[in-house]
């Protein structure tokens, strides 16, 4: 039996070795009953704000100069007050709150703010969010409580961008052991599995009531729903269809939160059919947005007619339409403009058939279903829409010739993305303005909105801009999504607000530190 014993020893030794390597890093034990588990669909790429973790706030670990209320208004966080802007709009000065400390006890000073923003702006750091801060020329901290941003051009949304979490000066950018000044401190992270946070007892606004948070990742929607049902999660983000089973259950609350996250059709404006304003307007009239909301989104959405969410203060109420479509008016419009139905039912004008290709990213089932709905609505008015489900790498080179279902939308500032999507300087540059929209008046309004410091002037500009884009039907907007959250138990302080596309880090959980179990 010696051979067998030797063999056994061989394997036991290798097993022990493995066991010894994997001795778990000991963390503080969980307080009984104080753990709140959130089920999320995708793991964060990084926990470093510099590398793109929660730049719009809601990270819980970090705090920015400013933070956002549920009604989207900005309040000072690390800053003591809203910033002061110089008369030419090129210098923005923040004064920092006194006595703010990082989780490890270091005081948060102007040098940390300078370090954070400079790290984002340094091209060598490969920060994916660098483009968002392109207006900033330099950041200086003349004293520990003052930070001065010098801008390349007047940039009204700078205060909105100041929600970026502040990291301690000199800390590595890997976000490996994240240290911030937010309401929760980092405890541990199991890659591919979860992140554990505990309440920061020294938080400037008082310690959070929920003393321990676990952010658990489960990519599959049904797995998340099952684990929520099984009681493993206390709260979960779900697509509307997966959340349906929780409706009407007494132990949970389902929150449907509006968002500025839209889906629409981007038209290549240099092509004969999609370049024809009448065809675009007819299509915009014909699509049954309400059916898309009811069927594709299982009710969790609202019809969209423009790029600005009707739930925000920037929305132009004149930008609206018939939710369930008006195919009769669409047919009339086409007929009057000379688009006459041919033998196959597809209209044509001067020998050009009213046909175009609509692309969608193949892996995105929501966009696929929207594309199918568009094609069937278009067929009813004699427009032939051929669908192409492609990978992004195949889509990109075709964006100036074929239409595409795209999704954007941020509730924070109408400048976000809108400028890049519609300004002629970005025409046909990557994913920005791929249709090649070029309108001097729209350019002027976007520039006014970006540069003006006067909220009334900005509002006027964006209202006019929305009207132009709507009248020209540059895009056909389809739906705004609603985000669905399921929460077990009752909590005070759950305050839904209009959300952006990216909501895993913030969303409803952005102020979970103010939640208290209801009596």
């Amino acid at each position, binding site marked *: *039996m*010696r*051979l067998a014993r*030797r063999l056994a020893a061989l394997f036991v030794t290798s097993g022990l070795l493995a066991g010894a390597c*994997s001795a778990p890093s000991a963390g503080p034990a969980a307080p009984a009953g104080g753990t709140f588990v959130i089920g999320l669909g995708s793991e964060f790429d*990084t926990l470093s704000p510099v590398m793109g973790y929660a730049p719009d706030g809601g990270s819980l670990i970090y705090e920015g100069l400013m933070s956002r209320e549920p009604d989207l208004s900005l309040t000072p966080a690390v800053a003591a007050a809203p910033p002061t802007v110089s008369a030419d709009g090129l210098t923005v000065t923040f004064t920092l709150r006194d006595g703010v400390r990082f989780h490890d006890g270091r005081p948060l000073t102007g040098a940390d703010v300078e370090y954070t923003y400079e790290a984002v702006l340094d091209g060598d750091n490969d920060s*994916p969010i660098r483009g968002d801060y392109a207006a900033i020329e330099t950041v200086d901290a003349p004293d520990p409580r003052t930070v001065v941003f010098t801008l390349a051009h007047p940039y009204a949304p700078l205060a909105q961008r100041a929600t970026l979490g502040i990291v301690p000066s000199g800390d590595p950018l890997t976000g490996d052991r994240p240290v911030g000044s937010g309401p929760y401190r980092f405890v541990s992270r199991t*890659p591919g599995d979860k992140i554990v946070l505990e309440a920061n007892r020294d938080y400037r606004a008082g310690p959070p009531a929920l003393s321990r948070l676990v952010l658990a990742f489960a990519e599959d929607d049904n797995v998340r729903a099952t684990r929520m049902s099984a009681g493993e999660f206390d709260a979960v983000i779900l697509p509307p269809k997966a959340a349906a089973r929780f409706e009407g259950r007494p132990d949970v609350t389902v929150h449907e939160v509006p968002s500025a996250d839209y889906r629409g059709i981007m038209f290549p404006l240099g092509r004969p059919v999609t370049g024809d304003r009448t065809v675009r307007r007819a299509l915009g009239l014909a699509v049954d947005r309400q059916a898309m909301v009811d069927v594709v989104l299982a009710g969790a959405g609202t019809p969209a007619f423009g790029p600005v969410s009707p739930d925000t203060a920037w929305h132009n109420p004149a930008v609206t339409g018939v939710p369930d479509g008006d195919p009769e008016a669409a047919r009339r419009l086409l007929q009057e403009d000379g688009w006459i139905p041919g033998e196959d039912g597809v209209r044509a004008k001067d020998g050009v058939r009213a046909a175009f290709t609509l692309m969608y990213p193949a892996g995105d089932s929501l966009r696929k279903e929207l594309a199918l709905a568009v094609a069937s609505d278009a067929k009813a008015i004699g427009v032939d829409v051929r669908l192409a489900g492609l990978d992004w790498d195949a889509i990109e080179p075709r964006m100036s010739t074929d239409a595409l279902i795209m999704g954007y939308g941020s509730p924070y500032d109408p400048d976000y993305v809108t400028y890049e999507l519609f300004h002629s300087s970005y025409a046909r540059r990557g994913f920005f303005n791929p249709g090649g929209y070029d309108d001097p008046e729209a350019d002027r309004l976007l520039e006014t909105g970006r540069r003006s410091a006067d909220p009334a002037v900005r509002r006027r500009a964006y209202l006019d801009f929305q009207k132009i884009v709507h009248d020209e039907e540059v895009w056909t907007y389809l739906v705004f999504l609603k985000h669905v959250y399921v929460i077990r138990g009752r909590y005070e302080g759950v305050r839904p607000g209009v959300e952006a596309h990216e909501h895993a880090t913030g969303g409803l959980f952005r102020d979970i530190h103010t939640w208290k179990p209801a009596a």
Partner: protein
Amino acid sequence: MSPDPETASVLPDPATGRVLPDPATDRAGHGAEGDGVKRAAPAARPPRRPSDGLGRAIARMAAWRAAFAAPLLLAVTAGMFALAKASPFDPVRQYLGDRAVVTDPAVAERIRANWGLDRPVLEQYATWLGNLLRGDLGESRSLHLPVGQVIAERLPWTLLATSAAIVLMLAGSLVAGTVAARRRGSWLDRFITGGALANEAAPVFWLGLLAISVFSVRLGWLPAGGLTDAASATVELGDLAAHMVLPVTVLAVSQSSWLVLYVRESVSGVLREDFVTGARARGLRERTVLVRHALRSALLPFLTLLGARVPELVTGAILVETVFSWPGVASASVQAALAVDFPLLAALTLLGTLAVVGGNLLADIAYTIADPRVRTLGVG
């Protein structure tokens, strides 16, 4: 049925077969454990004791393998680079993720330049190789962490799961194979053989999903995935063990078919050998004959087979870790491949190749220790 040719060629002929239980083997074993034994009675032994060659044989084998491994690793990583280059996915877009569509093209180009992706592929490969030789594995683009750290965090979990699976697989297939050989032709044998064949035909991921559906969803006995319960912040032994049961069992079962069939074939071949008949004729207990004589002889080819199974084990681990959300290196390699994360993918490919080369070497060393003829005949 005659013993199959492969078994017969490796198995001892009846004459040498009887040598195995001989004390000579036991002495050889002690010699391997330390020089002290050798020095205890230096003059009394003839100079050409089998154990003298053991260390040398192993060293020679290891040296040969190392010499072989270097060009092999070079070829594998070069192939990996060529494949990754041919991939239709753009690493910068994967890196930017959802933000790809809201990122200024100029920023994306800068990242591309920082990574050297605009350079010729040969230059990229040379740079990577140079950094590797300096011990710098680079930074994982998808996880935003140094590759060395990613591997250090995840490798222990993979080692834990796979070594547990190997032990389980060994024990299980030895028992099942021996039982089947002993009762050859019985309903139990048919059940084991049939089960092994059916199991060989079943893909690992299917087996994993089946196990989840039965034991986690239907019966609710075991957790469906992860390392620990979602709510626990630390890794506790009981919790970890419960989470290990399904992935380890599925991995072990999925890899065991060949072994079960081999052990069965091998043991039943040996059972017909003269030395076994002799042992029975001497009136030894059936259990002694089976375990001490038959199984023991049958074990040798088993070792070779085990070494040859390492690549399959690596592949199996990739699928099992993915299905059970086990945070090991194997599941990271899937992520790395999907994200076209060159640095991580290259390092993990290297690691996988090393595992295969090392596994084969270990199997051969074990063989050398187990069978004195291998080293005396110089089969290295």
